[in-house]
Every structure is written in C-alpha cells, then in structure tokens.
C-alpha cells in the first residue's frame, strides 16, 4: 500500500500525516490523530455519525479519502468548543435534552453548526431537512430540533 504525506488543518491545528491510499478521513481522524469524537456508525455514508466540516461543508468523513484532504481544513466535534466555552449548538442541545446515548451527537452537532453557518435563522423545516442525513435512534429528534432552534435564537458563532 502506497503512503502519502498530507498537510491538513484539523480544529485549527496544522498536521502532517502519512496516510495509506485507502484510508478514509474518518480513519485518519480516529486512528492517526486520536480524535475519537467522530463516530463510525456504518462506514457507508448512510448514518451521519461521522459528519465533520471539510472546508466549511458538512461531509461524511467515512466517504472521503484522507489523501483528498491534503491542504484542507477540517473541524470535528472536538473543535466546536473553544477554551472550555461550548458552541451554542452544544449548549442548547444539552438544554433541550437532545442527548441520550450520545453516539449520533457529534454528527448532529456538526450538521447543525454547518446549517447555522450558512443560514443563521433557519425555519423548523430547514432544520429538519439539514438533519435528515443524521440518524438518531434514541431521542425521536424533537428535542434535537428544539435545541438547534434555540441555538439559532441565541446567535451563532462560526466554528
């Protein structure tokens, strides 16, 4: 297996990583950088648990090869809070009771942050649409949507 040296900015920090050709961004984050907040739920781009921001856009990191990320900027759930200050979507998801088992939570938070970055005042339908690729089996989504709504109200902070 050929290895490639890539340069990537992850949560604001520049990293140089040697990755095999077939390694996904998800594997690189978890195995090479020990950023295990991003979860592997299906490895097929269907559940959204591995969602990260890549150059500001939400992507399923299991569907992106690490070599494609050379020069890219990536934000994971670990990068949402700064100096122990939670992002409003994190705060409001807690407040609304939108966390249960927590396994879908990182992906939900990233998709929500991406939505609020491109649309700071989304309608309820727009929130639901933005989260359609993030499966959650515990909460029934209602409190998650509530949390994103409230995060929009209190104002967003770009990640």
């Amino acid at each position, binding site marked *: 297996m050929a290895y490639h040296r890539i340069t990537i900015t992850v949560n604001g920090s520049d990293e140089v990583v040697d990755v095999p050709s077939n390694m996904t961004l998800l594997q690189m984050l978890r195995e090479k950088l020990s950023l295990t907040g991003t979860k592997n739920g299906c490895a097929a781009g269907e559940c959204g648990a591995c969602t990260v921001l890549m150059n500001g856009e939400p992507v399923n990191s299991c569907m992106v090869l690490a070599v494609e990320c050379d020069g890219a900027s990536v934000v994971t*759930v670990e990068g949402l809070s700064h100096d122990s200050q939670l992002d409003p979507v994190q705060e409001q998801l*807690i407040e609304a009771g939108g966390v*249960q088992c927590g396994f879908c939570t990182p992906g939900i938070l990233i998709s929500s942050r991406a939505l609020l970055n491109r649309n700071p005042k989304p309608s309820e339908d727009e929130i639901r649409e933005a989260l359609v690729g993030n499966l959650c089996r515990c*909460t029934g989504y209602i409190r998650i949507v509530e949390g994103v709504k409230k995060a929009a109200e209190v104002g967003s902070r770009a990640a």
Partner: protein
Amino acid sequence: MPSTSTLGEKTKGVIGVDMPRVDCHEKVTGSAIYTDDIQFGNQLLHARIKRSPHAHALIKKIDTSKAEALPGVKVVVTGADFPKRIGLYLKDKYIFARDRVRFIGEAVAGVAAVSEEIADKAVDLIEVEYEPLDPVFDAEFGASPEAPLIHPDLADYEVPNFIFPVPGTNIANHFKIRKGDVDAVWDQCAAIVEYKFRVPHVQHVPIEPHVAVAKMDETGKITLWASSQSPFAQRNLIAKSLGISESDIRVIAPYVGGGFGCKAGVTMEAMPVAIAMKAQGRPVKLRLTREEEFYTNFVRQGLIAKIKVGCDKDGKLLALQNTMYWDGGASTEYGVNITRAGGYSGTGPYDVPNVKVDSMCIYTNHPIGGAYRGFGMSEVHTGIVQCMDMLAEKIGMDPVAFHKLNCVEGGDIIATGMKMHSVGLRECIDKVAKSIDWGNKGKPSAPNKKRGQGVAIMWKAPAMPPNAGSSAWVELNEDGTVTVGIGGQEIGQGSFTVMAQIAADSLGVPFEWVRIAGPVDTQYSPYEWQTVASRLTWSMGNAVRGAALDARKQIIDMVAQAWNENPEDLDIKDGTVISYKSEESISLKDIVVYGIPKPGFEGWVGGPIVGRGNFMPTYVTGLDKETGQGQRAVVHYTTGAQAIEIEIDTDTGKIDIVKAASAFDVGKAINPSLVKAQIEGGFVQGMSSAIFEEMKLVEGVMQNPNFVDYRIATAVDVPRSIDAIIVETAQDDGPYGARGIGEHPMVPTIAALANAIYNAIGVRVTNPPLSAEKIYLAMLDAGIVK
C-alpha cells in the same frame, strides 16, 4: 417489602426534578469514551468472522490451512476449539458453529490478523464444505410435525425450570394459560372478532454497531471491553462456556451508543474472547460492520398471532384466545423468555374472565431473536389492541369508552392468577383522549387528505429471572463529594443521572456532589444482573437508595458519638450534618474520611465512610406448566395509553401524524424530563417500526441490510411534537414509588396507528409495516382511490 421504600416521605428538592444529565457535557464535546474509542496500540489484532452462506446445513469439513498460512494471520479458530454451549435461558448455541449451521450469517470460524484487510482475506481463504438440509422459514410450519428438526438435541439442553421445550419438535418453549373456559362462553358473546396477524422481524439499529475487544494475560485472566448492557451476565455466560471461572473474566463496559436490547445477554462478545485465548497476550478486536449488525446478531422475532376475542352486549369482555407462533430463529437462548413474557402478558392490559393463551417459541432458520425494547410486547399488542378496536366497532362502542370499560385495574385477578396492583391506566386513557380532542378530528388540510384518530393501551412487566438482583456502594471523598458504584449501564436512558439524584436525596448532599463510578467494570463495580427490562430505576434505584441510607447512618452515628447526642436528633442537609437539638453543624468535608477528633486529644471516632445496598425481588412465584396459574407472575406492570390523529394522503398513502399523545403510569417520575425523553423517543421508535421497518427475509437471506433499504425514521418523518404525559400511582416497592418506563413508550404505537388508519379510510391495514404503499394498495382494493 424492602426497608428502603419510603412512600410518602417528603422529597428534598432533587426527586421529581429535571436535573441535568450527568453525562451530557462529555457527550457534546466528543470526549465521552465508547468501546471503539479505546486505544490499544500496535499489538492490537483485528478479528473477522467466516459466516455460513446456508440457512440450514451440516458442516462436513473446514479447511483453515490456507488462512493460517497467510502472512499477518495470528489466530484461526473454529467450533472444534470451543465445545460447550452458551445461552442466557436455554443453552442451545455455540460460540462458533459445530457440525451444523442454522442461519445465514452464523459464525463458522474466526480469524485474528494484524489488519482488518488481512483478516478479511484470511476469512475468504477458509474452505467449508456443507451438506444443505431442508430449512424452516415459517414459524407456524416450523411447529408442525412435518417440519425438519433444527435442534435434534433439544432434550439435552440445559434450561431453567420456567421454560418448557418440547423435544422432538421445533418448539423451544410452549407457555400456556388456561383460565376459566373460553370454549364454554363463545356462545354467550354478543360480538366476536377473530383475526390473524403477522409482525415482521425488525432490527434494533443502535447507531453504534457491536464492538468488543478481549485480551488474555499470561496467567489466563481475561479482560473484555465491550459495548454492553450486560457486563455481569456476559462474564457469567462466557466463563461457563469457555470453562473458566467468572472472576477470571473482567468486563469493562464504557458508554453504550444505543442498546435497545441487542447488547444484552451474549451475542458476538464471546468470539473475541475465544480468539484472544489463543492470541498469546495480544488484544483482539471485533467490530461488526453495519451489514453484520443487521442480521448476524439479535433481531426482534417475527410473530404470527391468531386471536379470537368476544364481549357481551354491553361491551364487557368475556373471552380471549391468543395463539402465538414466534419466529425464534436459529437459537432461542434468549427468545424463549420473550415468548414466556408474551404468554403471561398475552391478554394485553384487559380484564378478561376466560383466557386461553398458547405462546410458542419456534426454531426457524432465520436470524437469532433476542431482547428488543418491549420484549415481545409491541408484537403482542399489535394484534390484541387492533382486535379490541374491531370489537368496539362491532358492539357499537366508542374505542376509548371500550378501553376504559375493559382495561385492568387494581385488584383484578389477571390471566395468570396474580392480583393486579393499583394502576393509573384509566387516567392515562382519559389524558391522551383529552390531549388529542378525541372524537373531534380536525378537518383535512386538503381535498386529497383523510383524517383519522386511533387509541391503544399497553402493559408490560419486567421479564427476567425471578431473583434478578442489584447492588450498589456509596463512598464519601475528602471534599465531601460522593462516588456511587453501580453495575447498571448508561445506554442513553439517563440511568446515571437518576442514580445520582437518588443518592443525593438519600444522603442529603447537593446533586452536583455525586459522581457515578464509570465505566462499569466487573472488577470494581457491584453486581447488577443486566441493564434490561426497564428495571434499573426500580431495582438498582432501591440498591443505591439503600447504600446511600447506609452511608448516611454511618455518618450520623459517628457525629452523634462525637457530639454525645442522640442520632435521631441529627440530619444531613446540603452536605452538612446538623443537630435539631443542639443546633450544632459540621460539614461532611474531611470527617467522612478522617473521622472526628474527640475533645482533648483523646482519640478519634469514625473513619472512611462506605455504604452498601442491595435489592432482589423475593416474591415472584412459578407458574403452572399446563395452566400458567400462580400467585405472582411478575414484579409489577407499567401501563399506559397512546392516542394519535393522522392525515393520510390519498394520492400516495403517506401518513402524517398530526397529533400524538402518550401517557404512562411510572409510579413516580424521579426526573420528569428524562421520563418524557423516553416517552418521545419510544414513540418515534414505535412509529418507525410501524411505518417503515421490516427485515426482508427471502429464503433466509436478508435483502435490505443497510440504511438505504432498511429505512428508520429521520428528522423529517417525525411529528412536530408529542404530548408526553406522566401519571403517578406509586409502586409499593419502588424507590420513591418509581417503576420503569424505558421500553413501554413504543409498545402501543403500531396498534394506535393501525386503528387511526382504519378510522381515516375505513379499511384495515393490520400488519406492519403500515407503509404508504400498503395503505395506497388497500385504498385501491377498497375502491377509495382509482
């Protein structure tokens, strides 16, 4: 009655209050550790499993030589290496198949290699020769004498005395109720409904797939890290099957990314342990792919139910007959008890004088059935509650009035002969009916829409061995904070938070002072049977309350001795011991570890404080094999009701849920917000299973093992809001009167939706999934649309 029960005691500000989850900060920052997140370094081996392509076949020969020769492969095992059976109730399963395979996906051999890619290649190199046998794909046929036998050795299997296999058949358990005489009263019925229902197999779909890592040290002691609802049961079952002692297996169970029953008992966790025993000290990790997750592990059993029910002219139920064929799959080690629960609760929550129930767990060549949120109750209620709706219409009664007339209430002698404890089921029915303005459905939002309302009720008891126990310890730290040791798991339901509330209140410290000792680790954590059956708040809650009260007594006795006061005059409030008599006070800080000095340097009193508590129900009795009658079949029932209003698009058959109300009698809501979160999440899981979900099994092959073809509800599919209603009729032996709620909210949903569909379009679509396609075709058949 345990001494920990304190009904009527004034609560002190943390009970019945929406305290914040103790785990939410870790979970929103990505720092919460799940099993797959634990780092094992370069020595980690990756396991993959060779699986059967046949539904039913004899294994003639396994050749692993090519796999073993592949560079990077460290271990190859087959069933020949592990001769003892495993199973929670009926020991009918091997860790790796021996002699015979019984479903497509059954583990035949295991490989551990330095990478997943090499392990996958090695699996392909294992050659297995099979001799196919006739399969069984239908439970009703499976029960017949013509069906090929799937477990010819059933008579030899180890089984507890409350499970009744029928050797020489595929019936792994036959549970019966004979109460009164149904055949004598059918003639007296003014109306009778008779119907056959089919409920398909569905999958739990936790977002976190199963994962387990095992390692054996040089002395033969094993550590297993697993995403697990059952660290103690796993320790027990795996040890027995592998011929080692329970305490030589240590199970560490971090946060679970969704369980719903599929991570209870033992499924794939025994495989990495078995492989690790031959891996010379290297850790071995097995992580199921999403495809494997769909059909190689526990699934919810399919059900065929034939129901006949009759009432008198006033609508009062006279007789109920329920014959259930459960599709238990290739192994029924856990499923036999689901079918037992389906049997003893087989009337649904109705008061019926004459009952005949046959609940049969049938071996088939389908995936293995296991616990799934509700433990058989969603499946049972799907048919029973629809029959009640049909019967109400036949006798000319409103369904809500019919349910209120016939639902169980305190003092009723239920089908098993047990006297029902007090329940607030009628109150639940009233509240959901009021919430959706029952009887006044709204105008359709467009000419191509039809509206309907439906109601359903439910009951469910914790299904478990009669003596499933809990234990807890409560330890005080120098700073006055409290560490609570428990063996029950946080699987998303909020158990750690509720236990912290119970400990804080019982001990008299602020909620923020309480830490739960996690992750659950069988080496340090106190025993807990399993995190299943909606039993933790009630059972583990009693143990935690007992442990906290024990610690409290130790502290008060110590201070009383130091102050030369009577313990009855002392109390602990907000982390401070106070005397109502002398008006002295002292902070818990320091004294709970170092004790209190006596005056004049004359020594010390006290010492480090550790409280202990346990709980085990002692009053559950057996039931007669032929009649199902006994003093007390279960510990208690949680009951509830659901009412919904839907709109059906007649152009597509698509359902839109306009109003949804769900009420459950939880005894006491220790954390109302968490209770409501269970009610909402359970409703949506029930709705998802009702509308979308079905494992499409064709000749034993699952056709849809991915999220594109097996849809679960997404954010756009769910109602805008769900009116989650709490009713509180205290449980006599629950902490603060509490009983469980985790599973119940999804139980009535299929029936409530089916009844609403009928109310909307006048056509019965009875068998889930109640898909848009099925509804549209039913409307087409009935001439409602052209």
